[in-house]
């Protein structure tokens, strides 16, 4: 199914206000939706006949400095089509108040580790995630290294880093 057909199916189910904007600049067009809709939209995409996006290839977070974007790359094994979904989150830079988005672990289990990675490196809080611990970095690490404004600590456990 093409991008436009998938889009029109989404619009007929959720209404035109679902799609905030779309990006056709690159090789893979993307749909922007609101974070409140993400779980319902993904469940619809996964379970609807003809769409059947059963495979979450990749989930990642991008720091654009003005805002964060969460990017989902969905795939369908039986129909061999794919879709890029994006959600923009306001860019709280404070470490006490991370940007929040509902977790997709209930839809695809792949999201579990990918969301933990995004939390670990980019500092995105996934609401409803069953086990949101750091995954690659040690549990007592301070800060989120993939953020553009990250400054590395001088010492870790009393040892100089540089």
């Amino acid at each position: 199914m093409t991008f436009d057909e998938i889009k029109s199916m989404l619009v007929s189910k959720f209404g035109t206000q679902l799609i905030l904007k779309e990006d056709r600049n690159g090789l893979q067009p993307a749909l922007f939706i609101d974070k409140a809709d993400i779980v319902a939209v993904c469940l619809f995409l996964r379970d609807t006949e003809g769409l059947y996006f059963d495979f979450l290839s990749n989930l990642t977070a991008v720091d654009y400095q003005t805002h964060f974007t969460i990017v989902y790359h969905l795939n369908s094994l039986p129909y061999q089509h794919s879709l890029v979904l994006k959600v923009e989150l306001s860019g709280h830079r404070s470490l006490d108040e991370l940007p929040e988005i509902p977790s997709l672990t209930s839809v695809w289990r792949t999201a579990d580790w990918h969301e933990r990675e995004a939390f670990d490196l980019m500092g995105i809080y996934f609401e409803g995630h069953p086990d949101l611990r750091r995954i690659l970095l040690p549990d007592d690490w301070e800060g989120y290294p993939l953020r553009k404004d990250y400054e590395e600590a001088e010492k870790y456990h009393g040892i100089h880093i540089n």
Partner: protein
Amino acid sequence: MANPKYKEALLRYEKHLTEISSQEMVLNMGPQHPSTHGVLRLQLITDGEIVKEVVPHLGYLHRCFDKHAESLNYAKTIPFTDRLDYLASMNNSHAFVMGVERMLGLDSKIPKRIEYIRVLVCELNRIASHLIAIGTYGIDIGATTPFLWCFRDREHIMNMLEWASGSRMLYNYIWVGGLFYDLPVGFEERCTEFITYFKPKLVELDEILTQNQIFISRTAKIGVLPADVAINYGVSGPMLRASGIKWDLRRIDGYSVYPEIDFEIPVGKGEMGAIGDCWDRYKVRMDEVKESVRIVEQCLERLQKDFKRTAEFDPRALVPKKVNLKTQDYYVRAENPKGELGFYFVTKDKSDIPLRVKSRGPSFNNLSVISELGKGVLIADLIAILGSIDIVLGEVDR
């Protein structure tokens, strides 16, 4: 002090470990355990011989690939991609380079000779990677001989690739727009010689392991991974195919010159009792080696007949001096020996340094299913299951 909400999961996990019953025990497997194939730590909650729960701990080999990639230009990142799955470096750089070339619009202009050389070295590397998977899997469950045989034959491939690229494991051979060098003179002949040598060895390896009764008892009907669970966890590559799904990106996406090459996609058939058990995963890899040998043969034939080496052929002719890409993003995926290797690029304002690169390691996703597979199995079976997943920690931790 950070918001306590972000430490909640950690506290919950620590509390869970203290709340196990008196007959249960927390057992650490790794990071120095030989069967974890590197520095993976599995925390097992065991009840005698039975594993109740597996909690994987990653990150011991975290080398900040994503952060490095967003501070270096594309050509400088290629050596870092080699170090993701260091057993299949060619495949990694091929995927990365393919993504950059597509964004540049270069992919259709690459000469056929270069594409065939790329596929040739990638498939040789796939054989080497699968040989390690098979050999170490044998040794995990007690068979020493196949391990030695696999490493002996793999060494021939390593030597050939070293001859082509100058390095034994981390090649930096495939470049954006071309190759580091053309194949050395005589490479095709030496490769043909290797294939002639390797084919009977493969039969031997097949005989010693595939139908070996001890091997079958250790792997058949162990760690059965149903197809729906595999898909839900994002499992790909030989693991997904062993669960009976014919999904190979070399065919699905048909990138490079794979559409011109004839090869089969082996899937798990449940010959030993259950589709998607450890034996099936082993068998799919074994069959894939045979298919890769076929691909190598076809590449060699084309390289020696249709796309011969000429004096004026320059594999660096299309290599761009500087990669300047407009603002866009692109997710490229390719079939690595372990599964779907993806790179997600975000580029900005014609800069030659990407804003963000995310690597999606197949081992990372394949490993995530271990908590599901490891529930209620024997500790010895957990070794068999972990070996059949065939992880490379360089790619899990990135």
